[in-house]
């Protein structure tokens, strides 16, 4: 893409984790997004704008779409079979926080 923003030498995309996550959620290849931040940093807004302008699904999006979610399985869930003695309940914060 012919973006005016300086292309980082390594082709690396500079964007905060939240923008990267949003790109994945929207199926946008973040490498194709024009960054409006300093130095061409890609913001969440840039990702959203790119998606709205029809830029979704360039690539990379496929991974997310294809990745198999939990499918029903036909054998009985282990949940019932496995003892849950001492389960949950013990609130209080955290691993070792109950004292």
């Amino acid at each position, binding site marked *: 893409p012919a973006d005016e923003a*300086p292309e980082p030498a390594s082709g690396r995309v500079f964007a*905060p984790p939240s923008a990267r996550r949003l790109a994945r959620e929207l199926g946008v290849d973040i490498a194709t997004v024009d960054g409006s931040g*300093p130095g061409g940093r890609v913001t969440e807004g840039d990702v959203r704008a790119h998606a709205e302008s029809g830029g979704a699904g360039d690539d990379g999006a496929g991974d*997310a779409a294809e990745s*198999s979610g*939990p499918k029903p399985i036909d*054998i009985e869930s282990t949940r019932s079979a496995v003892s*849950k003695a001492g389960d949950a309940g*013990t609130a209080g914060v955290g691993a070792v926080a109950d004292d």
Partner: protein
Amino acid sequence: MVVGDISTGTDVAVIGAGPGGYVAAIRAAQLGLDTTLIERDAYGGACLNHGCIPSKAFIHGAGVAHEAANAEELGIYADPAVDMERMQRWKSGVVDRLTGGVEKLCTANGVNLVEGTATFADEHKLRVAHEGAGQGSESIEFEHAIVATGSRPIQIPGFEFDGERVLSSRDLLQMESLPDSLVVVGAGYIGMELSTMLAKLGTDVTVVEMLDDVLPGYEEDVQRIVRSRAEELDVEFHFGEGAAGWEETAEGGVAVATETEEGEASEYLADKVLVAVGRSPVTDTLELGSAGLEPTEDGFIETDHQARTDVDSIFAVGDVAGEPMLAHKASKEGIVAAEAAAGEPAALDYQAVPAAVFTEPEIATVGLTEAEAAEEGFDPAVGQMPFNASGRALTTTHTEGFVRVVADEETGFVLGGQIVGPDASELIAELVLAVEMGATLEDVAATIHTHPTLAEATMEAAENAMGRAIHTLNR
């Protein structure tokens, strides 16, 4: 718990309860997946039981004793006595508390816990063998499996671990008394952390390393600071020598034979020898082949940007999935694998994995060094602030080291940082966030840093890279 030859099913089966596996299991359960975590030994894996936590506990203890014993300059006179058996008991208490916590957190999140050794039957089925007589085995069918079987210490020929004379890091961290003297084979991060710790407690430490400096892979000025400090603690180094074998001495100690590449032989005497030459991934417990998987030449399981293996239903995370073999990398992969298994668009798209070495002083690094930045085509802008110009460092007497920030000259983006000095492991957090956020030097420099703190050095280093530091001279 289910015993006998029963078959059950689960959405996600996680194999191994180290920081890769237990984190994956908790996240998977949080995402509503029926999750089963199988561990054959101890919750928390190598990290909580034989690695990160016990080593840092002893390093802290050794630090307290050593600091007090060396504070005459401050007008503090102390001659601490150390009861190793008691320190060991304290360490075990810490470990028990954390591993107990892991178990509780798993249960509280609804993870099914199964004790035993898991092996693959096929791409959707595990067999779990329970130890002990009459415990039998069970089969678990899974939609997804996450392999998190970790790593174990590498043994070198002639140095089989016996827990008596030839110790692994695991053996050493279980010592009930201090050895008077120790030969350490390997000056990597585990060897250096343990050597420094023992030297502070009074053990005579001799380090033998095949390469020509400590901590291979770190920059020279970083290596130098840690090596010099260890030497000041009377650690003796022999570089360019490989451990060739050992013999028991008449006194019941060890005589460790070494050899240079040119064949020059030397011998070092000590009570015991610690072999810390690296760790190798654990795949031999798994019968990977039954699932259609095969480790790489290096023994790792290959994975993609979602920590997924070549077999769609199986993920691999942590030490078994490749370098860097670090607990926080394992946990990150565990989270991504769990989210991917739940159908979320997760990815290992972080910019950098930080690493810390708990020597004296500590080292912590993230992202690119100056040389790496140049290699990747950046024009590196580098700034540095030595701790001996830091007010906070001076008030603690710990003034060795520096903060270095590496950025891209054109855009100002922070690409990485190297910190050697007090609390480096904590200070790196700010730079990791900077790297992840795509922060610029200006962002770091303009952020107000509390006075007096060591963290100010990070701001100064950024300013220095921009030619406008206040507390150091700019070139």
